[in-house]
């Protein structure tokens, strides 16, 4: 087996070879590290590599494989988005303001994957504080799409999506606040899943918008995504918003196929403004395949979709304006200590440490929460949020899951939207409803348009991860389209 073959494996395949002794955890990790060294100067998915972490974890995995009690992810190479705290590993949320910050603790989701044997290769690039849809807002450098290096990988978890697409990691973790896992998964041609709000503990996730953020996996197969999700789900006493539902329930019945299932196609999503013909064609083909596999396609409506974007861009900035207040230069990260007084220190630290988009959202959110504007903006947005939840409740009375494109467009050229924030915000128009309503959603590859990957989004009812995974897996099987590794150069 060549090194490149090793970087195209799924967890299931790798686990079998590891247990048979055909390959070692060290072989697997070395193959990935070599691929990173070869390709990442072009893709730029990683901000930092963590040999100090993987060396120990490889050793541990090999020991446990030898002893015959290998955990489910023993030796599996994992990349972690730069917003998830790992003890002793520089974690910066893609921002200069946290440069040099090494958390003294590891967040719950990452810790659970470590316990399951995953081997961390490094920290992946993202839009600063997860604010963006192209990874161009990174405080370090943009990441490129492995399928076309002149294009963006999507965002904000662009580094994690690109790493898996390029075969630099077998699985990775991202976070999804408005589409930040599903949209880059679509643009990079991999599987990306956002769980129900509360399914995965947010402890250790550097918050962007607390009521919307969820951690989720990237993988090259639905099976792999499901396995990783099941391993990091479940109650965490350190997160009061985490649910006590058993994590393993996400796997319930998920191999049962779509025969007899009703799949809703919301007309507001199907005909969304700005959807590219090639994307629409790929979705039509996917719907046909699902029908052929036995699903019934039903027409549903999400009438408040138009207001979703506006509500999202009030609620998310409002929460972020508060969440980011702690970056003041007093305790950690960048600190402008030459300031004349404490107010100047705050101003200078934040002006220097935060990028344009972060500053824009902090200002938007501060304004929306201000006395005299709260009712007109924040409160109104919360009411819209309730209406959007009701839209989904109504739709799920008529169908088991909702299917649509993940992104209205394929990967766009680097720099093409950076001057127009609103056009960038529109990237999330099909995904952010799932965040506002707290629902589980997945993006699976469904063909290409102009040679670039298109993603099929499946949304399910609250706690319906198993339904979402079941549809996604059935599609993957019926379409015989497995996420491929981009050859890059």
């Amino acid at each position, binding site marked *: 087996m060549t090194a490149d073959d090793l970087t195209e494996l799924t967890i299931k395949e790798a686990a079998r070879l590891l247990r048979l002794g055909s390959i070692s955890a060290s072989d697997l990790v070395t193959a990935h590290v070599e691929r990173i060294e070869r390709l990442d100067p072009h893709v730029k998915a990683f901000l930092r590599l963590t040999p100090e972490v993987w060396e120990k974890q490889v050793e541990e995995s090999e020991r446990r494989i030898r002893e015959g009690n290998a955990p489910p992810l023993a030796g599996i190479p994992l990349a972690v988005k730069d*917003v*998830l*705290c790992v003890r002793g590993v520089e*974690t910066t*949320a893609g921002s200069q303001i*946290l440069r040099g*910050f090494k*958390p*003294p*603790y590891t*967040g719950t989701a990452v810790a659970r994957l470590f316990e399951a044997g995953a081997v961390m290769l490094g920290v992946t690039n993202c839009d600063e504080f997860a604010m963006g849809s192209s990874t161009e807002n990174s405080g370090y450098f943009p990441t490129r799409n492995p399928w076309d290096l002149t294009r963006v990988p999507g965002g904000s978890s662009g580094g994690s999506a690109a790493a898996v697409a390029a075969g630099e990691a077998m699985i990775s973790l991202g976070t999804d606040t408005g589409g930040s896992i599903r949209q880059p998964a679509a643009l990079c041609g991999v599987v990306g899943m956002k769980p129900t709000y509360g399914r995965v503990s*947010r*402890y*250790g*996730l*550097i*918050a962007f*918008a*607390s*009521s919307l953020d969820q951690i989720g996996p990237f993988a090259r197969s639905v099976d792999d995504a499901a396995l990783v999700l099941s391993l990091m789900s479940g109650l965490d*006493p*350190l*997160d*009061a*918003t985490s649910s006590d539902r058993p994590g393993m329930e996400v796997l319930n019945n998920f191999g049962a196929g779509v025969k007899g299932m009703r799949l809703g196609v919301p007309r507001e999503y199907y005909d969304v403004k700005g959807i590219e013909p090639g994307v629409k064609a790929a979705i039509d083909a996917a719907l046909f395949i699902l029908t052929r596999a036995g699903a019934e396609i039903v027409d549903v409506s999400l009438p408040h979709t138009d207001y979703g974007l506006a509500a999202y861009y009030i609620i998310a900035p*409002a*929460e972020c*304006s*508060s969440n*980011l*207040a*702690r*970056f*003041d230069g*007093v*305790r*950690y990260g960048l600190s402008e200590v030459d300031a004349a*007084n*404490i107010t100047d220190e*705050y101003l200078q630290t934040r002006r220097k440490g935060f990028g344009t988009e972060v500053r824009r959202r902090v200002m938007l959110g*501060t304004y929306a*929460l*201000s*006395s005299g504007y*709260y009712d007109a903006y*924040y409160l109104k947005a919360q009411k819209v949020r309730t209406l959007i939840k009701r839209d989904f409740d109504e739709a799920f009375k008529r169908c088991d899951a909702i299917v649509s494109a993940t992104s209205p467009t394929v990967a766009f050229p680097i720099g093409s939207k950076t001057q127009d924030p609103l056009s960038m915000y529109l990237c999330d128009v099909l995904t952010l409803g799932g965040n506002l309503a707290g629902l589980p959603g997945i993006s699976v590859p469904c063909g290409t348009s102009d040679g670039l990957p298109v993603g099929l989004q499946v949304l399910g009812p609250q706690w319906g991860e198993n339904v979402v995974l079941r549809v996604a897996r059935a599609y993957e099987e019926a379409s015989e389209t497995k996420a491929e590794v981009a050859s890059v150069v």
Partner: protein
Amino acid sequence: MEIHVQARTRSKMFCGCAIAELNAPPNTHVCEVCLGLPGVLPVPNKAAVEACLKTALALNCEIPRHTKFDRKNYMYPDLPKGYQISQYDLPMSRDGFLEIGDRRVRIRRVHLEEDTGKLIHAGDKLHKAWESYVDLNRAGVPLMEIVSEPDLRSADEARDYAMELQALLRTVGASNADMEKGQMRAEPNISIRRAGSEELGVKTELKNINSFRALHRAITFEVERQRQALESGGKVVQETRGWSESEQRTFPQRSKEFAEDYRYFPEPDIPPLELDRAWIEQLRASLPELPSVTREALKKELPAADAVLIAGSRDLADLYQRTVARGVPPAATANWIVNEVAPTGKIPSPENLAELVRLVLDGAITREQGRSVLMESVETGRTPAEIVAEHGYAQMSDESELRVLAQAVIDANPKATADFRAGRKQAMQALMADLRKRAPHANAKAASELLMKLLA
């Protein structure tokens, strides 16, 4: 009046850190959560919620079915997250009252929040400091904020209200409420009005008050300052003023001319709390007798001052009631509790206190002996009878022994003896003093009678 009270819990409001003692070295009781590091989340402390609910119930407040936490946003170096988790429009309780004497002070709300850290300035005051240090031991300590309606009309009432509240908090076990330790911080809002007018003037808020006495003095000073300002044609500015203990005056701290906008919004990291009715009723039923009730009962059998002191602490009130229930006279029991138990803060069992008071009343041991027996009993848990037996404590009551002693005293003090015989009765004191020095265990009453008989 706004009063912040530290809820009595083992750990902080939103993390597992232990509550630091006042003199703990800086930043030794902190973790990633109360330091506000990136990625952490708050998890509410049930014991703090319980303390808040108990306080609210004792203050006759209404407890809503739903309550939630909110973020109060402002930046200051002692506030690690850039916001304080507090409660805004759905507090844990509202609309109660507290009775002081025959006055009823309405309580607007009791809510729960987290404390901030502490700044230590090297140099002078904040703006002159050349260096400032941050101690976050206190950050995240649970605080209850108790807000009254403007029903307090004088410094006396304000102080009585605060003292009554302290007694109540201690009784229900919600807080130690020690003002000197900063566990209870009173912030009176003061405005005055022209006699006969209903309209209150511009208010000022006072901070840095560390004792009931300071509370009284600060209010008295501030009322007088406002009166003088208005009478001399000036005006009162709405502001926060600090109380200076050393100068015994208030001074301007922060102008409220530009009202701060705290941008309150619901804390998204903590789901709204549903307050289970059965739990509330269980808490209500478990509340001990409140100090006002205890005090009224005690006043029927004790001097008012003793009744106030004993009723002010649930431990003392329990001890009193259970000791008296064993048939010991109330006055003697109260006397021992007020003079010997309260100052030490060490509570004996009612059985042991009852036995001790009886031993002294019966003349088996002297009061002086009784005091050391009590101390030893509290330390070791042994019964007073055992201790008396072991030490051979007993009063010298045998008349023949006392007669020898009395005669020795008379022989040794010819001047005092002569004075007494000449009609100066106070000379007896000198004789008794000598007698006690020679035989501390002598039964004082019997010895004094014997001396008088011998000198007659």
